[in-house]
């Protein structure tokens, strides 16, 4: 099992009545009413300190991500974050999981190939290259990319980046969306032929197929625990892998889970309840129609989502739920080390997840509590999860230099 620490870098101090006063945390939330640039600088620095603390505590990887015009998580440039983290974690066995820079919104996309190669070089070959499609709010609304072209642009950018990393000669790229006369990337990644590729997703069936076809790792970013939706995603994903002749290596699948660890279950409720509610009530305060902008999903995924609106129902019900419901429905795992340990084991086993990502800073959590969560998690919870899958599978989607030592004869 490989465990990475995810961070959104959210606004930690939104007003109590935020979701009543404002239409959305994304796109239209007014910066000057809600935030102070100096305080935001503090958030960025806390975020660095928390991710570095996780790396020092034994996190296998640290994750950054890209979002725009919002208070939910505002790292518009994950690679600026990654650059600081690459330098600050020199000498640690910690991967930089850039999950990452959005392909359809970056023009030209070789910018991502260049920046990821820089990060791989600076970090000494510790990069995991996330290839996100980007949310409709980020890519369609904020960055103006035509929804129905988003996936097609993504696929072209994916092919261009991989070719830019691996080609030995200068080559022209005559694409539909991108035309470049002479591509000759400087620098190149240390990892050969290229860094491992992870594709984050929220359950679109076409993304499963794309990931399986290219033999990448699929990371399900759900927030909705591992009950109904996740089980459906699991079944469909592994079925798709089989269809493409892929093995059942659990490291093909990543999963993001919100986690809060305290000394006891009761203390965990005291510590985390309000921050969990802040995350779900304010952090995910987005008009549902923005998640389904026409064309963002291909026809079949959209038709599936309209006929079976499980995800939309989950989303619509969030404001009704309280901490106890989020725990009960396993949206979050909060409790004593033993409680969290058992639940995470069950999750990883049930979903067949080898690359677990944990969100240890949740919503409005202050810096000190986050450090406590990180420390308890890596001291008391992570060690007992580590042996999972290790005897049978190798994590082919992890930087070679950082892979755990596998026993002889383990399937790669």
């Amino acid at each position: 099992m490989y465990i990475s620490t995810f961070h959104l870098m959210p606004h930690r101090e939104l007003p109590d009545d935020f979701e009543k006063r404002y239409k959305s945390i994304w796109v239209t939330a007014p910066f000057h009413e809600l935030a102070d640039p100096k305080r935001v600088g503090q958030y960025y620095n806390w975020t660095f300190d928390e991710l570095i603390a996780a790396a020092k505590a034994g996190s296998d990887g640290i994750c950054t991500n890209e979002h725009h015009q919002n208070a939910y998580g505002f790292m518009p440039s994950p690679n600026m974050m990654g650059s600081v983290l690459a330098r600050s974690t020199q000498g640690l066995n910690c991967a930089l999981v850039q999950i990452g820079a959005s392909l359809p919104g970056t023009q030209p996309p070789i910018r991502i190939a260049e920046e990821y190669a820089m990060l791989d070089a600076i970090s000494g070959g510790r990069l995991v290259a996330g290839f996100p499609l980007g949310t409709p709010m980020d890519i369609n609304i904020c960055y103006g990319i035509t929804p129905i072209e988003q996936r097609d642009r993504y696929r072209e950018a994916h092919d261009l980046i991989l070719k830019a990393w691996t080609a030995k000669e200068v080559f022209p790229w005559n694409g539909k969306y991108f035309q470049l006369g002479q591509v000759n990337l400087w620098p190149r990644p240390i990892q050969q032929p290229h860094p491992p590729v992870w594709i984050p997703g929220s359950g679109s069936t076409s993304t499963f197929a794309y990931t399986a076809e290219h033999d990448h790792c699929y990371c399900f970013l759900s927030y909705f625990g591992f009950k109904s939706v996740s089980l459906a995603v699991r079944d469909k994903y592994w079925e798709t892998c089989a269809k493409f002749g892929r093995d059942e290596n659990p490291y093909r699948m990543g999963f993001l889970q919100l986690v809060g660890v305290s000394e006891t279950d009761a203390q965990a409720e005291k510590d985390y309840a309000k921050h969990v509610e802040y995350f779900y009530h304010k952090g995910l305060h987005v008009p549902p129609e923005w998640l389904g902008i026409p064309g963002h999903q291909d026809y079949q995924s959209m038709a599936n989502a309209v006929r079976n609106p499980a995800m939309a129902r989950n989303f619509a019900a969030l404001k009704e739920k309280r901490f106890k419901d989020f725990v009960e429905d396993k949206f979050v795992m909060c409790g004593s080390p033993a409680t969290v340990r058992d639940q995470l084991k069950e999750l990883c086993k049930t979903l067949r997840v080898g690359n677990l990502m944990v969100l240890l800073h949740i919503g409005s959590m202050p810096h000190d509590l986050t450090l406590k969560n990180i420390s308890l998690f890596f001291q008391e919870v992570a060690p007992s999860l580590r042996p999972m899958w290790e005897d049978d599978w190798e994590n082919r989607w992890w930087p070679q230099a950082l892979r755990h030592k596998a026993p002889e004869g383990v399937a790669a």
Partner: protein
Amino acid sequence: MSTVTDRRVTVWQNKISPNVKVAGSGSPVVFLHGAGGLIWDPFLDKLAERHTVYAPEHPGTSSGDPDAIAHLDNLWDLVLYYYELFDALGLKSVPVIGHSFGGMMAAELAASNPERVSKLVLMCPIGFWRDDAPIPNWMTISPASDMPKYLLYDPEGPVAKQMFGAPDPEMQIRMIWCMACTGKFVWPIPDKGLKKRIHRIKAPTLVLWGSDDRLVPAVYAEEFSSRIPGSRVEMLGQAGHVFTLEHAEKVAALVEGFLS
């Protein structure tokens, strides 16, 4: 009530086979629908009493071939595609009526090759942008709770109930995909250069607008009429963006008067 037949036509190197709804008899007229998709409504019925109405479905929105839209990359492709479709239907020079997105396309067709469009009816078309009258992005509006306010004069009235009353998943899928396929040519702001081309229009033009249009405000009527020589504006009172549903008879009479 006229008999409406579905005619499948194959164009664009045999890659796109749109469905064209055809009804009535008499001189031909083409109707280009808006972003929400083609609905055969009482206005088209009225029109079919004196004309052969050809109402093509936007590429990608005819049943069974949602990916047809991938064969048209941009507005230039789409304009040429329509000339091919006219050829396939045997329409050399024809009156074209367009609503909203279809209105913009009608104007583009009339501007690009004035010989193909003999008369032009623009029903609250998109195609221009004014910072003092921004057009809300209909693709980001909640269909259930907010769309009636933007589309209709009376968001609570019978037309609203008929359009948005009981959402049927299959209808929703059709509408969403139609917005996706039309949005390809206008996202995120529906100003794609018509202002540089509109002066080329030679067809006699009627511009129709609902005075209470909350999606594409009536100030845009002037943007069109001032740029099309000899055009005429009819402003409809107590009318929203889909005034063909709200005032079918009146609109049909105005259009008929203009065409004849």
